[in-house]
């Protein structure tokens, strides 16, 4: 990430993600503040995806928000990548900015982390590349003039200049799959959740910077 992109991320007044943060704050006030205190959200985004012991599956923060809507508020779930879901997620994640990523590693989550690692190392697509081949073996080198990053998901939801808007880690993962000419999984697929968990575990201890800005 270049100096200018970093400056946009650090611009708390007129960085482009501010528009989503403000909308998220409004949505929080209307939908969540009746039960939750925003101070309690500090650190929450650093712990997702997490194992939901009742549903017996992994949920990310988007899923958590929608579960709250469908179960407690009897409201329809927001669709993936909807403005509302991204804004509220960005606002909640913002509360954990600067905190170290700390997803749970225990006997419940371990199989999911291993499944995520398998996804990460799985060759796929017409280019027959795995995530690891670029982001473990060749980070720091250049691909079409831009450096290959280590693929740490520290800033999601993220404002990507390419998208000209805010998007989720799941959208970014779909991007990668399209990049190696593979058919992406459907939105909400478990493959994304285990990959998200593996990536967050791999980035454990790194500081969350949501909402980030990337090229």
């Amino acid at each position, binding site marked *: 990430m270049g100096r200018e992109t970093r400056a946009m991320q650090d611009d708390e007044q007129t960085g482009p993600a501010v528009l989503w943060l403000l909308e998220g704050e409004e949505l929080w006030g209307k939908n969540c503040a009746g039960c939750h205190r925003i101070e309690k959200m500090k650190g929450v985004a650093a712990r997702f995806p997490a194992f939901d012991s009742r549903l017996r599956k992994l949920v990310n923060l988007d899923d958590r928000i929608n579960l709250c809507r469908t179960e407690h508020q009897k409201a329809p779930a927001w669709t993936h990548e909807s*403005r509302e879901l991204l804004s509220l997620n960005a606002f909640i994640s913002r509360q954990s900015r600067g905190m170290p990523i700390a997803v749970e590693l225990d006997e419940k989550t371990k199989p999911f982390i291993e499944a995520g690692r398998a996804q990460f190392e799985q060759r796929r697509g017409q280019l027959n590349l795995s995530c690891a081949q670029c982001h473990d073996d060749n980070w720091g080198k250049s691909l079409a003039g831009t450096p290959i990053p280590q693929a740490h998901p520290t800033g999601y939801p993220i404002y990507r200049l390419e998208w000209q808007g805010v998007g989720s880690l799941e959208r970014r993962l779909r991007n990668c799959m399209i990049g190696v000419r593979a058919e992406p999984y459907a939105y909400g697929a478990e493959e994304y959740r285990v990959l998200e968990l593996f990536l967050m575990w791999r980035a454990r201890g790194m500081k969350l910077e949501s909402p980030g800005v990337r090229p």
Partner: protein
Amino acid sequence: MAARVVVNVPASAKKGDVIEIRTLAGHPMETGFRHTQTGQLIPRDIILRFSCSYNGVEVFAADLHPAIAANPLISFTTVATESGTLEFKWTGDNGFSAAHTSTLSVV
């Protein structure tokens, strides 16, 4: 989304000070040069004009073109002459219109 705008003006300033004003408007600034995957041209939808009036007198304005990035940032300066209101206005294609008023106290 409904037009969301962000304006950064200091709450107060000394008379004669030059203050910096930063504005951000939520808008896709669709260029009119992009196509969908099936080849349909996406029509242009941009903000065409931005203006700032200080107690009713226009002190800054700009004409924008498709080459302005999505969610346009416009930053400029003005001299704090007297206490009052700063009115910001954005207008564009398809009847787009957004406005914001800030108050400034000059001491």
